[in-house]
């Protein structure tokens, strides 16, 4: 029987689709009978979805600083384009 601690360790791989069929099955079985781990996996999944957006928006002064730098670089480069990368 899988232990709760192992469920926590494998949750990342489960959600990334990286577990083998056998591992996934063992984990699913555990989650059916263990409500704590069921809750862990469910809330962990929501948390991962929130991470890309956790930084919030830049302030207007940050935006205008970037815009100024971009404009200045445009001017000094003339019409050149296409950096490598």
């Amino acid at each position, binding site marked *: 029987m899988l232990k709760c*601690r192992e469920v926590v360790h494998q949750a990342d791989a489960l959600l990334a689709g990286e577990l083998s069929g056998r591992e996934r099955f063992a984990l699913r079985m555990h989650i059916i009978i263990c409500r*704590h*781990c069921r809750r*862990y996996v469910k809330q962990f999944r929501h*948390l991962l979805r*929130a991470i890309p957006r956790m930084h919030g*928006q830049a302030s207007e002064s940050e935006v205008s600083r970037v815009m100024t730098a971009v404009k200045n670089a445009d001017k000094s480069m003339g019409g050149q384009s296409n950096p490598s990368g």
Partner: protein
Amino acid sequence: MRAEVVPDDIQALRRGDDSAFSALVRAHHRALLATATAIVGIDDAEEVVQNAWIKAHKALPGFEGRSALRTWLTRIVINEARMLLRKSRREVSLQLDEDQHPLADRFREGGHWSKPPVTWHDESPDGLLMQRELADCLSRLLLAMPAPQRAMLELRDAGGLEFDEICNELTITASNARVLLHRARTQLFKLVDHYQETGEC
């Protein structure tokens, strides 16, 4: 009602539309700063991201949309970060730290929960992000997190890069990359769980 997230207008960005570009900066600048900070440190992060925006602005007309814009921008930031490190003869070192697992104290010896997670009131991503105080707690935790863990979180989870690419760009093995990411994520989990239980960081 105003939408919280404005989708990037790729057509307008390719045309070089100024307001589309400032919307792009507004949406991604903070995340890119966090990525750069995790790689080069806070003192050089601003310069790295500034240069990345200049490169991105020039390269946008050729953006093909094969990856998400955030991922594309993150790659440019990594390039700039590596250039700066090379110039200053520094190296990125993403070593494993000796910290114990963030949730280690939540299990009994036999491996079962001693203190299971609480039920989160509003567990949806929107629900989590709307709570101002929780957002502040999260940013404080990110600042305090060891740089290697934070780098993995920013590159993989916030930036959307694949493990392969991260391991190629920065010197780190795939298994260490996974351990670092797991620790970073479970630290966040622990914080949110604690906040949901107590209303405090």
